[in-house]
């Protein structure tokens, strides 16, 4: 027994796929000049060795190692995350590109003998009692890929530790992930303890169990539907948006 499945199901992913391949689309976005073009292509391909080789050539050719970070590495990574946001490429590509870019940054720092100022610091954690950390890992990777410094507190993180980290690091933003209806209540406690200490840091919360209706119950909370919302919100904070505006942007109803 067999059927023609076209009457009973539609694979919308196939229907919606763009005519151009991700490689073609990326190639149109790479900078025209060398060595930037080759380095960006190596980041897109997630090839660490090629990234380093390109950087070496650039530095031999007189480029400033530290300037290469912003002028080339971040540009290459932005192409990757833009394509991910558009739905053209998938997460593993972003992760591999981010690994390659981060190695490139380390190399530039060694060569240049100094470190550039990151765009801002963000503390990430998984709610106390919850071990589901893949969403958090993705959030942290996308934030790093977007040029933010991430302090990753890991999973099953006690409220005390979150508060202590915020006090110590003074981050521009805090993220929380919870996949269980039993653990997400820790976010309210984090919120209350932050407010008690007068720390009004925007607290973006996401993960399977969390929804907007829950997050609006506490003052500092902003709901994050998907991991890509984290760098978007961090950039919005850099652009000067306050809590109310962040909620307006990221809350859907």
């Amino acid at each position, binding site marked *: *027994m*067999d*059927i*023609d*499945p076209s009457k*009973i*199901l539609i*694979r*919308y*992913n*196939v229907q*919606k*796929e763009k005519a151009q*391949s*991700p490689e073609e689309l990326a190639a149109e976005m790479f900078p025209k000049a060398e060595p930037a073009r080759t380095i960006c292509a190596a980041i897109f391909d997630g090839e660490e060795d090629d990234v380093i080789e390109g950087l070496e050539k650039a530095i031999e050719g007189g480029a400033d190692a530290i300037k290469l970070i912003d002028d080339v590495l971040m540009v290459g990574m932005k192409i990757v995350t833009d394509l*991910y946001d558009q*739905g053209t*490429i*998938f*997460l*593993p*590509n972003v*992760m*591999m590109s981010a*690994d390659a870019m981060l190695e490139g940054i380390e190399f530039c720092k060694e060569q240049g003998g100094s470190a550039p100022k990151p765009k801002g610091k963000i503390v990430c954690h998984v709610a106390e*009692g919850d*071990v589901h*950390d*893949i969403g958090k*890992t*993705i959030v942290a*990777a996308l934030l790093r890929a977007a040029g933010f410094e991430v302090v990753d507190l*890991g*999973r*099953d993180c006690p409220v005390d530790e979150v508060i202590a980290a915020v006090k110590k690091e003074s981050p521009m933003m805090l993220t929380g992930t919870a996949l269980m*209806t*039993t653990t997400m*209540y820790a976010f309210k406690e984090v919120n209350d303890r932050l407010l008690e200490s007068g720390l009004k840091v925007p607290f973006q919360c996401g993960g399977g169990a969390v929804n907007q209706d829950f997050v609006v119950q506490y003052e500092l909370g902003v709901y994050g539907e998907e991991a890509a919302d984290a760098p978007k919100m961090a950039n919005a904070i850099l652009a000067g948006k306050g809590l109310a505006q962040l909620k307006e942007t990221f809350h859907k109803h």
Partner: protein
Amino acid sequence: MVKRYTSMAYKAADDMIFGKSVYPVKAELGLEVGAGYVTAEVNYAPRPEAGVSKEKLVSEYRRLTTDIMARAVQVGFPAVSLETEHVEQMTNNPTWGGEVAHVQKTILEEYHEEYGIKCGLRHTPGDIREDRDLLALIGAKYDTLMESFEAVAEAGADFLSIETMGGKEILDYAILRNDVPGLIYGIGCLGSIDMTMIWSDIRKIADKKGRIAAGDTDCAQANTAMFIAGGLLDKNLAHTLAIIARAISAPRTLAGYEAGAQGPGKDCGYENTIVKSITGCPIAQEGKTSTCAHSDVMGNLVMQCCDLWSNESVEYHAEFGGTSVQCWSESLNYDAAMLNVATETGNAKMLRDILVLSDKYRDPQGYVLAYDNAYKVGQAIVKDGDDLFLRAKNAAISSVDILNAADSKKLVMSKFEINALKDAKASLDAMTDESETFMSDCMEKYKAEVAVFRPDANYKF
């Protein structure tokens, strides 16, 4: 040394069917699993507020168990099985889990006595073997876990299960990087090593207490891959890679049977059809009637060879139709009744094939798990059944081959899925066939790349 499977339990894929297995198992209160009929397996989770004390938890489970049984007799169902997946407190405090099992079993006994309804009870302690960011598979937590198994077995749980996490530290890293050798190492090698250890011990407890060592699932890894892959429009992982992870999970779940499990396998093991083709042991499955817990892209197909039919999990609360456990157990039981009618009227294979065709072409994952293809994956596994690495690699290769051989007018894959498949194939082609080389290369690679990987402490290398 455990004996590994090197042959199939079924002569042909077409012999596999729901409700029947080669080696049925029997619970205390009349329920047989895989003996010719399908039974609902009801799953539930306590409300968060109930977790604060032992008394509250016990009372929550007392109420929900009574609710399920009351509904089953009100609607005239002949059998029902319950699964209690522990919340962490119940495993960490073995007496808590034990008391819940005792209270539940007592209610089942009362209903069995009064109405003759056949019942079963599965308890699934949580895999508590970790410290914050590190797996701690061997040591004090292992001992507590075994105490928990002892306690629930003593208290009356018929079926003992767990969802183990061995190999997960590598999977979490590899799955976000399209790293196929990493999948084989994490799931197929490390996972199977841990499974062999833990299931030997669970079987000893089951034998001592006269219970059934039921089975495991690769939830921690293959379901993680499936959830990251998500729906058709999600962009986090190619569905073609998710099914490779799933295929590799079959030999891992199989390792539990080799060490002593007898079935019914755990509901969320979507790899179970492959496993059943090799072991002939009964399996639980979940799909269209577990949408309360998660979405998948093969809700009908996974019914194809189930012996228990589960709703995965639902929080205990009120719905318009009664409490949530009553609503979902009723749906499950009606599903079971339909399957059993098909069996009684000689239409079982027809219904099985209808269920399969409803989802076979919906997604590469369902395509490979359709029983005819699942059987082929099973054959690839037993071909090198004695070599944990090779059989996992074989499973991966066979899933890739099955997809590549599919009729592209029926199983329509996106360019993205096809490319991911091509990359996976290239990476498999480039891999060694030597187990020792593979193991030592991986050890070196992942020790360098994965900070939380502690091979000696967790796998006794």
